[in-house]
């Protein structure tokens, strides 16, 4: 009996909490926007309290209808999507989804979308006054809309402007900016966000891709092109996260093809403060909970007291 109690006293669970712009996350595992709905869809399949945060589906002030189907197509170790921002609108989200989400002990981050700068500002001002939201994620990297969206991620000056303006509008909430990988040099965009006052950046959104039905000679997606996600993009995402982490001082959140604790660890070691899990939620609905548990297990087995010791700990060859 005595031995057992001594063990208990000396045993300390590894600390897995991280902080991003003053917000504490119980662990660095989040779910990526567009892959986890409004969170509640997964409530029966995993413990939503087990993860650091949920980034909900991109929201505009008023509902958006979205693109014509077919909208998705599976490719080798990944998938293409061209959903086109279909969402219920911020008002309905706050009225119908947010109250239920508040019952969970996790951070809610709202991804915001818009066709014009004013759209972003309007939804930002609205959400800024809503209790239960921990941060906003500015989506300027969606490849699946013809207007707005990716437009602001084509040159660093535009990225700077929209980030600076949205930051002014989001008085209370930290602002993250989700960046596109479809650029020549992600570092320029990361720097633009930092200079404009962004609190963090999410690196990356999907790669523009395409697939063709050779029998019909038709594109697999009605939109023609779509965003590629899933394990196929992980090495490229990791490289961009690494580049961004070496360039800016604000926290970088790693996104792209993460499907296991090992994948998540790669991003953390490369310097990401947290990670978002996307496409894997579709084929393993409780994957984020498993990853959170796996990170804890890694810390324990490697005798790491605090997960922050891992972040940015890559040992490069000199």
């Amino acid at each position, binding site marked *: 009996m005595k031995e057992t109690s001594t063990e208990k006293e000396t045993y300390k669970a590894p600390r897995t909490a991280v902080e991003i712009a003053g917000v504490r996350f119980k662990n660095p595992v989040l779910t990526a926007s*567009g*892959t*986890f*709905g409004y969170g509640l*869809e*997964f409530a*029966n*399949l995993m413990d939503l309290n087990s993860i650091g945060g949920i980034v909900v*589906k991109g929201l505009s002030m008023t509902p958006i*209808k*979205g693109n*014509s*189907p*077919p*909208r*998705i*197509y*599976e490719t*080798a*170790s*990944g*998938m293409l*999507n061209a*959903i086109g921002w*279909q969402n219920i609108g911020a008002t309905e989200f706050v009225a119908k989804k947010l109250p239920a989400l508040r019952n969970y002990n996790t951070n809610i981050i709202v991804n915001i979308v818009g066709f014009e700068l004013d759209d972003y500002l309007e939804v930002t001002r609205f959400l800024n006054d809503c209790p239960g939201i921990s941060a906003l994620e500015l989506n300027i990297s969606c490849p699946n809309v013809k207007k707005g969206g990716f437009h602001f991620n084509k040159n660093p000056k535009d990225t700077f402007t929209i980030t600076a303006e949205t930051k002014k509008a989001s008085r209370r909430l930290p602002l993250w900016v989700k960046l596109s990988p479809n650029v020549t040099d992600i570092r320029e965009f990361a720097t633009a966000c930092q200079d404009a006052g962004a609190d963090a950046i999410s690196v990356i959104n999907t790669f523009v891709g395409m697939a063709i*039905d050779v029998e*019909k000679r*038709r*594109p697999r997606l*009605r939109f023609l092109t779509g965003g590629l996600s*899933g*394990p196929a993009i992980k090495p490229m995402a990791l490289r961009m996260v690494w580049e961004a982490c070496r360039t800016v001082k604000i926290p970088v959140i790693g996104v792209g093809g993460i*499907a*296991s604790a090992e994948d998540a660890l790669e991003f953390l070691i490369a310097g990401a403060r947290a990670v978002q899990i996307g*496409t894997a*939620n*579709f*084929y*393993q*609905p*409780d994957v984020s909970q498993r990853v959170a548990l796996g990170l804890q297990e890694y810390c324990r087995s490697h005798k790491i007291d605090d997960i922050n010791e891992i972040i940015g700990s890559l040992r490069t060859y000199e």
Partner: protein
Amino acid sequence: MLDKKVKVKDIRDLGERNYLLTVNTPEQARLVRPGQFIMLKCVEKVDENPILRRPFTIFNIHRNKRSGKPAGLELLVKDVGVGTRKLTQVRPGQMLDCLGPQGRGFQVSAEMRNRTELACLVAGGVGIAPLYLLAQSLLVQNVKLILFYGGARVADLVLREYFERLGIEIVYTTEDGSFGERGVVTQPVVRFLTANNRRNIRVYACGPWGMMKAVHKLSVEANVQCEVSLEARMGCSLGACLGCVVQTRDHLGEEHYLRVCQDGPVMSSRLIDWDTVPL
């Protein structure tokens, strides 16, 4: 809805790239309502391609031979692509991820026997899949039913024996005339709806888009209710990815994209905008 590892019990080749797959999963089998589906991983390992699961309508509840209790699910699988091809290569004893049962099924209720004199089931090829459980539950409600089952060739008319055992009236059609009436399945449906135009009929259809569109039009002309079971490529099946939508029109004429996975797969045919032809 449950997410389970289920064991393959049996896979039977029905010809013409059709298979009847039986998986053991008593807990999920107990929850099934007619018209619902499950998402099944086509390979054993979670990180193996294809990564996304595939949706399959539940054809039948497999029951324990002695106790008669639900023991598993019978699924009609047609090899139409990379995922389904791998699935048809599974062997008994293999374990697959299975999520469900889920989705909005057919509207069958106890009051139906008072309102519905006749149920008209229309299937095109593997569109037969959701109709067996439906037929069973209609019979339980004492609703008289007739099945119209069409295909290109006789080999497409799989699992006929299940329906024949129910002792219901069945009209078969094949486009090549190899079995039943020569032509498309909507021909005898027209005759049936015309001959019974004074009766209270409900139509249930599943098959290719063009067939369901035609059956919908006939139902509107005959002024009878029609439910269709839709098919779509799905990402998550949970209503999160919005990949499986179909264009609909509400009573105000406003267009919406509804999710086949959660707002369907069974929908009133009058909701659907049939002029949006999926590629």
